[in-house]
């Protein structure tokens, strides 16, 4: 007999939910109804969703239950609810990308490729999520929709720009969500909200049907509460897509089945120099992870600080180029903080932007040499735990810095050259923080194996907020 009580969706993993639905211990409809009820009760506080696709989700869940009743094989993510940063196209809705301006855009005709692939694997889309305007943000604040709130402390930032994605997963509303990462927008919120986050190799996952920001730096990926969920979701999304010109024609390389191989034989080092952060929480997190992995050597990522500068210039310039017409026609409708950055980017000298792109080529070739010596590099994901919402500056290594531009100072040198990274959350009182596990191009398997090993050892874990 079908048990109608849904699993504890608040903290169940996607794997647990899919197993329960597949075994008939619950139904996809029960799981989706429980998620919708949870959103209704909790999201007025977290402010993570900007749209809930209730009707569509229930229709999809009924179809999955009907297929199972007919004896059809259950797909790997059967009945698992998920949500997407609102820069992913959802058929029938305008794609907001965190902006006021895009509310006037026509509704998307199709779902983004990754939504199609996840639904083909049995997952159920239940809504669109809050984000920093046009993804130019590390804080999670948004003047149009209000800030998403950190489930561990509602007065604190989620990090951005995938703010709603992190708040919804850490807040127990969905087991996983999709975000985008141009300079750190998956890894920063994963760190501040205590989640696992994957930024894959540039060109690995299709961005088709997502609103762009910086074409040469944009990545998409998942956030979840376990490394295994990250791997399962990632596997369901892999594969070439001609609709994204940057998507590499690279064969899918499923990872979930490799996770239990452990870390034996992997050469792991800690990033030195620029990445040696002196805040107590970052020091603790990196040291704790390094000790658990037996990583006792430092490695210098050459010119990392300059790489961050190159990312900064390229972002400002390409981002401004994307929005030039909107800046001319509707400058007053932008978030003022984003508008001023974009207007400045429009005035950046082209000669220096090209130089940054040349430096990027040089830097990539130098960093790739390191992977002859090591398989993975550990680095802090953020310099600190979540700042207060509205906080303008923080102190790092005795220097006061603006929060908005600097929460990603350790993520930018990595995404500049498209390396795959898993952010692993390290419990730290009172707030979590994450460590980046950086691997060679196309070696997401290495970073995910290490993340899973750390989780198995209890070193990495998604902290459950007190209210859940």
């Amino acid at each position: 007999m079908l048990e109608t009580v849904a699993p504890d969706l608040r903290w169940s993993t996607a794997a647990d939910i899919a197993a329960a639905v597949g075994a008939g211990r619950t139904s996809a409809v029960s799981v989706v109804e429980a998620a919708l009820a949870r959103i209704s009760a909790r999201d007025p506080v977290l402010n993570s969703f900007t749209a809930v696709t209730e009707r569509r989700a229930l229709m999809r869940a009924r179809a999955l239950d009907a297929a199972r009743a007919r004896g059809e094989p259950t797909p790997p993510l059967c009945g698992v609810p998920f949500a997407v940063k609102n820069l992913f196209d959802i058929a029938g809705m305008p794609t907001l990308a965190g902006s006021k301006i895009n509310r006037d855009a026509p509704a998307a005709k199709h779902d983004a490729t990754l939504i199609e692939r996840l639904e083909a694997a049995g997952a159920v889309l239940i809504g669109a999520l809050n984000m920093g305007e046009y993804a130019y943000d590390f804080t999670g604040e948004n003047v149009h929709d209000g800030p998403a709130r950190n489930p561990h402390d509602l007065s604190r930032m989620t990090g951005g720009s995938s703010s709603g994605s992190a708040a919804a997963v850490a807040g127990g509303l969905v087991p996983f969500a999709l975000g985008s990462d141009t300079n750190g927008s998956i890894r920063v919120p994963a760190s501040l909200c205590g989640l696992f986050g994957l930024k894959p190799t540039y060109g690995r996952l299709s961005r088709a049907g997502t609103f762009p920001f910086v074409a040469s730096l944009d990545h998409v990926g998942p956030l979840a509460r376990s490394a295994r969920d990250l791997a399962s979701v990632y596997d369901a999304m892999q594969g070439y897509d001609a609709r994204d010109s940057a998507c590499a024609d690279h064969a899918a390389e499923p990872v979930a089945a490799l996770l239990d191989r452990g870390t034996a034989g992997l050469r792991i080092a800690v990033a030195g120099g620029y990445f040696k952060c002196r805040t107590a929480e970052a020091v603790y997190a990196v040291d704790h992870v390094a000790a658990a992995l037996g990583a006792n050597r430092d490695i210098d990522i050459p010119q990392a600080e300059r790489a961050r500068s190159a990312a900064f210039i390229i972002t400002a310039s390409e981002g401004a180029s994307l929005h030039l017409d909107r800046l001319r026609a509707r400058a007053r409708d932008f978030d003022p903080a984003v508008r001023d950055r974009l207007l400045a980017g429009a005035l950046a000298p082209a000669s220096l932007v090209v130089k940054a792109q040349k430096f990027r080529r040089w830097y990539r070739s130098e960093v790739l040499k390191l992977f002859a010596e090591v398989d993975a590099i550990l680095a802090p994901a953020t310099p600190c735990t979540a700042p207060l919402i509205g906080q303008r500056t923080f102190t790092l290594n005795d220097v006061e810095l603006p929060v908005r531009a600097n929460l990603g100072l350790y993520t930018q040198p990595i995404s500049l050259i498209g390396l795959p990274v898993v952010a692993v959350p390290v419990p730290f009182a009172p707030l979590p923080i994450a460590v980046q596990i950086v691997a060679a191009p196309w070696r997401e398997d290495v970073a995910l194996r290490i993340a899973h090993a750390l989780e198995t050892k209890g070193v990495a874990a998604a902290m459950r907020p007190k209210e859940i």
Partner: protein
Amino acid sequence: MRRKSAVRKPKAARKTRRPARRSPAKRPDPIVTLVAAGAKALALPIDPVWREGVAFNLRLILSHATQVDEFPLPDETEPAPVFRA
């Protein structure tokens, strides 16, 4: 036709016309000037109230650009982006 500049007053007379207590003229901030000029050239509607905020961000971009610009690269270095069709 006589040019105005050709009519020069005696040095002493010029000296007495100079305001005695006026503070030295404040030079306009070149970045703020660049913002105003760039906005005009690119037809970007930058409200004067926004200029300081835009100038702050442009200074930040240029400080990062200096970091990159100072790094010597061989002339043969190609830019990074790779586009696939």
